[in-house]
């Protein structure tokens, strides 16, 4: 009984020991905050990556692709049809985009050109959720648009001088035909969806559109043939692709698959043509690795060494692994903070044992056992650990809970944006509290606190009663 009483009294009277607990507290709080924010980031990033990429992608080694995608898809359906929800053939290649930009003439950018059938592609991922135009809603987000490349008459009229004349009333019928012809020449029939970061520049907190809906862009990509020749083609921008992954938003351009096949001399422009990818969306709960392996095996039988089947995680493996490595290294480093706190406890406990030497002598004279005396200090260490990690845990969780409020306050205070949403594309700092992580952190801190008190406790326990009583 005396152990508990003394632990409790020491905790309440030795404020110096509470000082050592502050570092445990800060360590635990920091670990919880950092882990929650990193988990939040990686969760969000995975979400977005997965939103853009289909669950499983079948690619051909040859950029020019294959014509028999119907058959390939039929084979896939045959083997893993029960796990597949949707499939979409697409064509992807590198290219260049030219835009006319104000006074600067023509700007050329390298891009990743995706030929897709928008409705089919939308069924194999969150593609449709990332399509926006240039108008802000009340919530400060951009208006969503449907997955389509259609260039409406409205848009055509709005984006060419001839078109704007057509909108005027009382246009001569003869004039009207000429103007329409002119308008159709000005505004290409085929729509394109351009990456948001390709189209805008972020400046002083707002987005400036260099490419607007209706803007004409020219794409150059490789056409198939005995030699590679460039294919030029113009498109009318109908919307923007804004996934939040800067890598995609600054490179992707989506155009109609049939048009791309036609321009690359890989199709008749009417549906028959080559593709170099098949996007597969699996049913919820399907094991993607297993599914990919099965598809790979089947397709290898069909055409050996030609197809490459990858899951979305595999395709972004290095990025996801980098985040995981970062997080574990950070955890190791931060745990050193708690280890340092452990040495603080060790030092302060040694002091307390010295200070309490006579009391320890008394306890022994009154019949306290060696293990009992050891128990006092181990219990005291545990108690300090519980207080430190408990307060740290609560503090850390509160910080995570109100992290965006705190960020706002800090930004106001320093006059600088602490968390720049244009870098991360998140309107606020994402967080994810994983209960097991918290348990591990708190458990680790308790372990360190108890471990740090083992040595002083052992010293106290081993004190000789007579020498302890005589201690001055």
């Amino acid at each position, binding site marked *: *009984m*005396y152990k*508990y*009483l*003394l632990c409790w*009294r*020491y905790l309440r*009277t030795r404020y110096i020991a509470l000082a050592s607990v502050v570092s445990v507290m800060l360590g635990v709080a920091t670990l919880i905050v950092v882990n929650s924010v990193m988990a939040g980031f990686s969760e969000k990033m995975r979400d977005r990556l997965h939103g853009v990429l289909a669950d499983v992608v079948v690619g051909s080694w040859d950029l020019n692709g294959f014509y028999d995608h119907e058959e390939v898809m039929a084979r896939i359906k045959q083997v893993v049809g029960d796990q597949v929800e949707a499939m979409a053939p697409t064509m992807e290649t590198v290219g260049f985009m030219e835009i006319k930009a104000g006074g600067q003439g023509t700007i050329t950018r390298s891009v990743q050109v995706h030929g897709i059938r928008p409705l089919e592609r939308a069924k194999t991922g969150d593609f449709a959720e990332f399509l926006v135009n240039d108008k802000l809603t009340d919530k400060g987000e951009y208006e969503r648009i449907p997955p389509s490349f259609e260039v409406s008459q409205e848009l055509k009229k709005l984006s060419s001088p001839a078109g704007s004349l057509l909108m005027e009333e009382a246009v001569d019928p003869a004039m009207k035909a000429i103007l329409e012809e002119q308008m159709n020449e000005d505004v290409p029939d085929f729509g394109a969806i351009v990456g948001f970061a390709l189209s805008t520049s972020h400046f002083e907190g707002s987005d400036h559109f260099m490419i607007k809906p209706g803007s004409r862009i020219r794409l150059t990509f490789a056409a198939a043939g005995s030699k590679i020749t460039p294919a030029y083609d113009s498109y009318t921008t109908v919307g923007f692709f804004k996934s939040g992954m800067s890598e995609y938003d600054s490179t992707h351009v989506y155009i109609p698959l049939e048009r791309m096949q036609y321009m690359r001399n890989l199709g008749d422009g009417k549906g028959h043509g080559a593709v170099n990818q098949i996007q597969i969306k699996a049913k919820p709960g399907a094991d993607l690795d297993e599914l990919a392996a099965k598809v790979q095996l089947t397709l290898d039988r069909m055409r050996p060494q030609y197809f490459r089947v990858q899951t979305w995680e595999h395709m972004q493996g290095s990025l996801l692994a980098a985040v995981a490595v970062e997080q574990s290294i950070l955890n190791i480093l931060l745990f050193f903070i708690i280890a340092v706190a452990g040495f603080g406890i060790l030092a302060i406990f040694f002091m307390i044992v010295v200070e309490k030497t*006579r*009391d320890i*002598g*008394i*306890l*022994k*004279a*009154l*019949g*306290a*056992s*060696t293990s*009992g005396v050891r128990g006092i200090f181990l219990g005291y260490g545990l108690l300090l650990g519980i207080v430190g990690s408990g307060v740290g845990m609560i503090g850390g969780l509160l910080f995570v809970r109100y992290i965006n409020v705190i960020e706002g306050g800090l930004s106001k205070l320093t006059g600088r944006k602490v968390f720049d949403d244009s870098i991360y594309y998140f309107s606020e700092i994402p967080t994810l509290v994983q209960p097991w992580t918290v348990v591990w952190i708190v458990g680790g801190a308790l372990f360190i606190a108890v471990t740090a008190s083992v040595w002083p406790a052992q010293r106290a326990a081993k004190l*000789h*009663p*007579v020498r302890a*009583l005589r201690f001055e």
Partner: protein
Amino acid sequence: MSIHLAAEGLFKSYHKGRTEVPVLRGVDLEVERGELVAVIGSSGSGKSTLMHLLGLLDGPDAGQVFLDGRRIDNVSERNRDALRNQTFGFIFQFYHLMPELSALENVMMPHLIRQSLFGYFKNRTRLRAEAAHLLKRVGLGHRLDHKPNELSGGELQRAAIARALCGGPDIVLADEPTGNLDAETGQSILELLRDLNRERGLTMMMVTHDPLIAAQADRIVRLVEGRIEEWSPALA
């Protein structure tokens, strides 16, 4: 009268660096039940060491200690702790109360050490009543919840005496109980010990410097250079 506590050929030496300093060189002693024995001697004569050996705070290099004719200096650590807790009560020159605990809690300490958490809460009322009763007996009924730093020297020693009696020991070992007090207070402490000795039939051994204090014991034992030199019936 029966022999309550006895020592036979006790040797004990301490090491100061490499030199061995002998403190006790063959002490034989018998204390009868209910006797109050004063141990006197100059500084360094081994008075305190003798008390420590008798109270099992330390072990002898040679020799034996007997309690009711049973050898106790070689018992297991567990039994030694139990004997210190239940059979012996200690009083020290510097009181040695724990500063974090109230007078009542200090007095209860032998019980707190003996009882488990569960046992304490089961018997809490009885144990607290016993400690409070002892504090009243030593004249500190009004100081139960005071911390040691709120008590005077005399009060501290009274509280320490109450602690030594808590849990009902048979033998009280007092190491200069009046050594840190003025003559008047020292006398009152001695009278308290004397009364308790008679009232409860306690066997008491008391180390002291003060011949006036020693003179009030049943018997005086003088230690000279680690040996018992003189037996003198004090009241003779």
